[in-house]
C-alpha cells in the first residue's frame, strides 16, 4: 500500500499519475518523446537504456514494465533484456549502445560522473550529439521516475504476465495513448 491515499488501486506509476493528472501529463509527454517518438535510436535501444537505469536504481515496477516494452520492441527477446541488465558488455547489442549504456550508468550515479572520454568513445562508435543528449536525459528521467514510484511506496505486483501484456500495448500505441486509460480526458 502506498504511503499516501492515492484514491485508486492502480499499481506503480499509474496510481501516482491518476492521483495527480496535472503532473502526469508532462511526465507522459516527456517519456513519449524520449522512448516512443521519432529518433535515430530504435525504441528497443531506448527502452533498454530505461530498463538498465531502472535496474541500477532497483525499481521493480519500472525495470519490469520497461523491460517488457523493450522485449516487445525486440521480437519478444526477453533473454536479451535480462542480459543487458545483468552485464550489457557481454550482450548481443551494438558497440554504440554499449557506449551509451556506460554514459547512462554514470548519469544514474550522478551527472558529474560522465567524462569527456565516455562521450568521445560513444561518438567514435557513431553516436550523434542528439543520441548522446537523449541518453543522458533518458537516464536522468528514469532517476526521477524510479524515485517517484519507490518514494511513494506504490504497489508493485509480481505479475509478469501483466507487465508483458502492457509492454506489448505500450510498444504499439505509446505512452500518451495508453495513459488515456487512467487519466481524465
Amino acid at each position, binding site marked *: 500500500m502506498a504511503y499516501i491515499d492515492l484514491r485508486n488501486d492502480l499499481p506503480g506509476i499509474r496510481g501516482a499519475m491518476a492521483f495527480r493528472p496535472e503532473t502526469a501529463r508532462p511526465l507522459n509527454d516527456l517519456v513519449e518523446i524520449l522512448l516512443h517518438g521519432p529518433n535515430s535510436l530504435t525504441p528497443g535501444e531506448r527502452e533498454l537504456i530505461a530498463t538498465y537505469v531502472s535496474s541500477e536504481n532497483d525499481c521493480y515496477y519500472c525495470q519490469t514494465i520497461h523491460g517488457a516494452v523493450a522485449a516487445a520492441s525486440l521480437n519478444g527477446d526477453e533473454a536479451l533484456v535480462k542480459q543487458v541488465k545483468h552485464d550489457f558488455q557481454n550482450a548481443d547489442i551494438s558497440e554504440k549502445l554499449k557506449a551509451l549504456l556506460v554514459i547512462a550508468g554514470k548519469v544514474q550515479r550522478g551527472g*558529474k560522473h560522465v567524462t569527456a572520454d565516455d562521450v568521445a568513445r560513444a561518438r567514435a562508435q557513431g553516436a550523434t550529439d542528439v543520441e548522446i*543528449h537523449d541518453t*543522458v*536525459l533518458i537516464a*536522468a528521467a528514469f532517476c526521477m521516475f524510479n524515485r517517484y514510484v519507490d518514494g511513494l511506496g506504490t504497489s508493485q505486483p509480481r505479475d509478469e504476465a501483466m507487465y508483458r501484456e502492457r509492454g506489448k500495448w505500450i510498444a504499439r500505441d505509446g505512452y500518451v495513448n495508453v495513459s488515456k486509460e487512467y487519466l481524465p480526458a
Partner: protein
Amino acid sequence: MPHIALPEGVPGIVSGFAFRPETAKPMRELAHVLLHGPNSLTPAERELIATYVSSRNDCYFCQTSHGAAAAAHLGKDWGLVDQVKRDFQAADVSDKLKALLTIAGKVQESGKRVTAEDVAHARELGATDMEIHDTVLIAAAFSMFNRYVDGLATWQPDDPTMYAAMGERLASQGYLIPSA
C-alpha cells in the same frame, strides 16, 4: 566545455532546452506545475525543496537559480536559503517544511529510503497527501534536472547578478516561457 554542441553563451539547463525543444516543453511544464502552479505549499517552500535537493546533488546551476527564485519569493532572504541548504533543521522554517525536506533528502538518495514513519511524521505536522506527493515528485524531478545539467557538462557561470535576475523572472513568471 559541454559534452555535446550546445548553443554557446547559454547557461545550464537553458542550453539543453535550446538544443532539444521537443523535450524542453514537457520539462518546463512539469517544473511550472510543481513550483509555480496553484498549491497549498507556497512557491517559496517548493523552491526551497528544489534548492535543497539540487544542493545535495551538488548541481551549481540548479541550486543557484532555484535558490535565487526562493530568495525572490522570500523578500530577498538569501540567508534563509543558505541556512536551508546548510542545515535546515536549524532554519527558521515550519516544522512541516522540515519534515517534507527530510522526505526530499531521502528521495534524493533513493526512493526506497523514504519510510512510512517519515510520511506519518510529516502528516502529524499538517502535511496533506497532495503536499507529500508533490514533495516526492519535486525531489525526484530535481534528481532528473540536476543529472541533465551536469551530465551534459553545461556552462554554469559564476555570476550572482545573472542568477538574481533569473530568480526574479522565475518567481514572477514561472517556467513556461523560454528565457532569451
